[in-house]
């Protein structure tokens, strides 16, 4: 990554060696084969908590280090390279961001220290339809006293089986409202979604789930704007993870081009493949610039965060889409086998692409933001 500070470089080195040693793709394979319900390994997760990664977006008064999104993302990139499964993104990025942006002091005091020490896992319960549509949230929330009663479904909830508290986006009379709902709330049930990337997602059913007024995150009916701000930070973080996944796929492919022999020479000496590698490299470098610009803009509090986050999610998405296909194609038959890791990268690539808006969603949003 570009022009990192000394501290960021240290964290990057630490994350790289930790991921390679403690949570490499072989560990992901073991986790998948074990069939564990929550879809990540508890020892891995505890180790991340001990390293302090859960506190990077949390203020020092709540036990965090407050180092910002670019710093968080150098870790996500390394985890993306190894396909390390954990609730780090869902809880310590999305969850902490939601509390930072919309939480009351009491809510922050109650939850942020627990995100940091890992005793709570937060996640955003957003999607209701197959396509990302945060403006069209329909989950019903009836007013009852100063609180709300929720009825409906949420799907594609990241780490939904392991989460202890959900940030639920609901439709209230005057707009969208964000609500904190404990996983144990009466009337709330969850089912695991068996997704192709073997990671943890859940579908949630709300059957007259009652929450008190102090569970509302931010202001009643005014959740639409903070939701977009939370989503943009999530998209930038995802872009970093996707960049890591794609960069690893690129490195694997390049290594194979240099070692696999056919027709008496290494296949990387064929110009058709050399040019494909050059083209993928160019796309990778261009998309890296977009992801970094989005993260830097968030840290700097710049005005063009929404535009840059859509640019990043779309451009990194295009790189990863093409790269994951070429990972299989260039590896040939071995790439099709489950024994080889290429399939993990392809499947994870598509899930990441779908999360919080795919390429066409963000291309459309980019055009709309520019005014055409």
């Amino acid at each position, binding site marked *: 990554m*570009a*022009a990192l500070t000394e501290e960021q470089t240290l964290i990057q080195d630490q994350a790289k060696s930790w991921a390679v040693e403690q949570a490499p793709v072989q560990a992901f394979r073991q986790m998948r084969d074990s069939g564990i319900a929550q879809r990540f390994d508890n020892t891995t997760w505890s180790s991340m908590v001990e390293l302090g990664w859960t506190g990077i977006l949390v203020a020092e008064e709540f036990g965090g280090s407050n180092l910002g999104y670019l710093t968080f993302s150098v870790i996500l990139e390394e985890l993306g390279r190894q396909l390390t499964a954990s609730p780090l993104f869902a809880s310590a990025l999305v969850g902490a961001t939601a509390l930072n942006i919309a939480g009351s002091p009491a809510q922050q005091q109650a939850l942020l220290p627990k995100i940091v020490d890992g005793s709570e896992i937060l996640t955003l319960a957003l999607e209701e339809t197959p396509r990302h549509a945060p403006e069209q949230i329909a989950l019903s929330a009836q007013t009852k006293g100063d609180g709300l009663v929720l009825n409906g479904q949420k799907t594609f909830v990241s780490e939904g089986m392991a989460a202890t508290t959900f940030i639920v986006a609901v439709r209230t009379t005057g707009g969208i409202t964000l609500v904190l709902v404990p996983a144990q709330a009466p009337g709330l049930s969850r089912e695991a979604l068996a997704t192709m990337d073997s990671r943890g997602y859940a579908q949630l059913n709300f059957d007259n789930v009652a929450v008190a007024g102090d569970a509302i995150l931010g202001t009643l009916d005014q959740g639409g704007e903070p939701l977009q701000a939370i989503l943009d930070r999530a998209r930038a973080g995802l872009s970093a993870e996707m960049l890591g996944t794609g960069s690893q796929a690129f490195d694997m492919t*390049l290594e194979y*081009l*240099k070692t696999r022999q056919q027709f008496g*020479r*290494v296949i*990387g*000496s064929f*110009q058709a*493949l*050399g*040019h494909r*590698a*050059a*083209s993928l*490299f*160019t796309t990778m*470098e*261009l*998309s*890296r*610039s*977009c992801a*970094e*610009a989005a993260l830097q803009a968030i840290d700097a509090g710049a005005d063009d965060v929404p535009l840059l986050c859509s*640019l990043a999610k*779309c*451009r990194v998405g295009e790189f990863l889409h093409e790269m994951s296909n070429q990972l299989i194609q260039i590896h040939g038959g071995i790439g099709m086998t489950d024994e080889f890791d290429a399939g993990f990268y392809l499947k994870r690539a598509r899930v990441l692409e779908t999360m919080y808006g795919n390429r*066409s969603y963000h*291309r*459309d949003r*980019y*055009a*709309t933001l*520019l*005014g*055409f």
Partner: protein
Amino acid sequence: MSDQDLNAFQEDAAAWLATHFPASLRHKIGGDFETNKEIAADLEVWRQRLAEQGWGAPTWPRQYGGAGLTDPQAKVVQEEMRKIGAANHIPVIAGMGVTMVGPTLLEYGTEAQKQKHLPGIASGEVRWCLGLSEPNAGSDLASLSTKAVAQGDEFIVNGQKIWTSGADISQWCGALVRTDAEAKKRDGISFVMLPMDQPGIETRPIRLIAGASPFCETFFNDARADKTDLLGDLNDGWSVVKRLLQHERQSQTTARGGQAKEQPLYDVAKAYVGVTDTGQLADADLRNRLASHLMDAQAHRLTIGRVTAEAKGKVEVSAAASILKNSATKVAQTKSELVVELMGSQGIGWEGAHFKDEELARVREWLSGKAISIYGGSFEVQNNIISKNILGLPETTQKG
């Protein structure tokens, strides 16, 4: 240099410009300013003042006609000029001198060569062209056949060059010539500098698909180059030209268009295509492709910024220059294709009053832009460079 020093420098630069830049030239330096007779006299005054200040090639050492400025200082000068509608036109009137020949001379030239050639370039008095490509040596430049034979204190040069931009108006030429026919093709090439005003050189302008062009064919018929004007070692011209072309790529990495005052492409599109009642471009397919293009353009600009930030404090030309050339090419050519397409039947004009000047200019720019993926190492050659030099893939497709 501290920010404080840079601020002081900025004030000095602004003060100097306020008293030395002729007001008559404000916003006039651009386009076809070289043929604008009304400003010719003031332009010459401005050239002399720039040259005296060393600002024609501001980062070059003072003893060679530069001002010895740091990159940030040179940027300040450029920015101060932009603010008042001024510009440094010496890099334009020196042809390939300031952007390519000069930087290469600074690196490979002898002290005598630097003293002889650099001041004329920095002052804009000597225009340079480059004789590299030949009719049968385009992308495969190393197969060139223009010959130079040593004779006494001189080389005698025979052969033909093509795409010698500005050859018909240049005073000097840097040429790649074969000096050893027996060696492997890259090992028998030298880089010589020779004056254009001599009986053995003839130039012929080339008309292109977009109309008149700066390009020429240049014929060498017993042309003479002084042996002291050999740049780099004999038969080591390939290293010299590789460096020269890096400087060329560096100067080409800014995508054309996207200049500050230009109307945004989506506004041009709205004017021709119309909008829906929600304000979206009426042609949904064009809207998608336009958004994709604008994303490419922004990704390219961000990458230039990133490369600059990463290179902070380093002087060498970054390897990423190869990536930026192809990226710039794609952005520029896609933009031209889109703008011609969205103008519909107003985008098919060649000349005449039925078409607006800017419509005709866009058509010509689209046509001349086809060269961007050909010159300075074609799109395909750039991909060879990336796969071999940056990714370390083996080379088997090129011989010699």
